[in-house]
């Protein structure tokens, strides 16, 4: 399925993501890493304040699409793969990999690279390579 090239919207949306990361760091002193914040909500050992702040950040994420619906009159346009087995496996790998590798696209890809962290740069290059390879195998070798 083709999608339209949207450089300006993507740049603008990206800058909003950056603004959010700076705002969270400026006010709370925390990295806007979604996998880390999400895991913190479910970690009993983390202090209650950290859990609360993480839960509120994730609540904000969850409120974005409903706010979009309210203002624009429609849900954000999207197409999501619907194969249950594929999405279950994808979810498992994303959750496991992000937690095991201490970060995902936001924590490593945006915040880490912005800090010049060598770990984050290497992690980002690594997951980009395996993601490109996975799509190549799925779409051009298997033909799914």
């Amino acid at each position: 399925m083709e999608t339209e090239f949207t450089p300006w919207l993507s740049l603008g949306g990206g800058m909003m993501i950056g603004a959010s990361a700076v705002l969270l760091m400026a006010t709370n002193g925390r990295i806007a890493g979604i996998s880390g914040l999400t895991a913190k909500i479910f970690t009993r050992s983390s202090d209650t304040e950290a859990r609360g702040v993480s839960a509120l950040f994730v609540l904000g994420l969850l409120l974005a699409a409903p706010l979009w619906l309210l203002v624009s009159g429609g849900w954000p346009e999207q197409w999501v793969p619907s194969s249950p087995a594929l999405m279950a496996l994808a979810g498992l790998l994303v959750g496991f990999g992000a937690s095991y590798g201490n970060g995902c696209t936001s924590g490593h890809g945006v915040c880490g690279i912005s800090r010049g962290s060598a770990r984050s740069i290497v992690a980002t290059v690594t997951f980009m390579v395996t993601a490109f390879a996975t799509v190549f195998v799925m779409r051009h070798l298997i033909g799914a």
Partner: protein
Amino acid sequence: MKQLFALLSGLIFGLGLIVSGMANPAKVLNFLDVFGTWDPSLAFVMGGAIAVTAPGFALLFRNRQTPLFDSKFRVPTRTDLEPKLLTGAAIFGIGWGLGGFCPGPALTSLPVAATGTLIFVPFMLIGMWAARHTPDITPNAKGAAS
């Protein structure tokens, strides 16, 4: 006050994901499909985000010792490249390439309630739980994975 700003940050992050197209797995998968229906948009998402975050963080850390409503900046200090980091990142990339979702866009898309999202998110949480209970594969690692 810090709670309010945490909520606001999450909301702006989610809106940014929607505006940028990153909350649409079709766009993510097309970004990753250089030899097919390539859509380079997501390079602009990451570029835009880093263009704001990098100078923002630099200014922040140069001008302030502490955040506005908390006692310290919590920034990772590790610099070693251990097998656990690379293994996790590699596995994460495979899952990202399969479903077109990473954690932020998946959570943002949850209220839209597409079937694929409703399956993806619970399994993502199970995966996170499993990772915390998986030992560190790094030789001579001190203690279990945290």
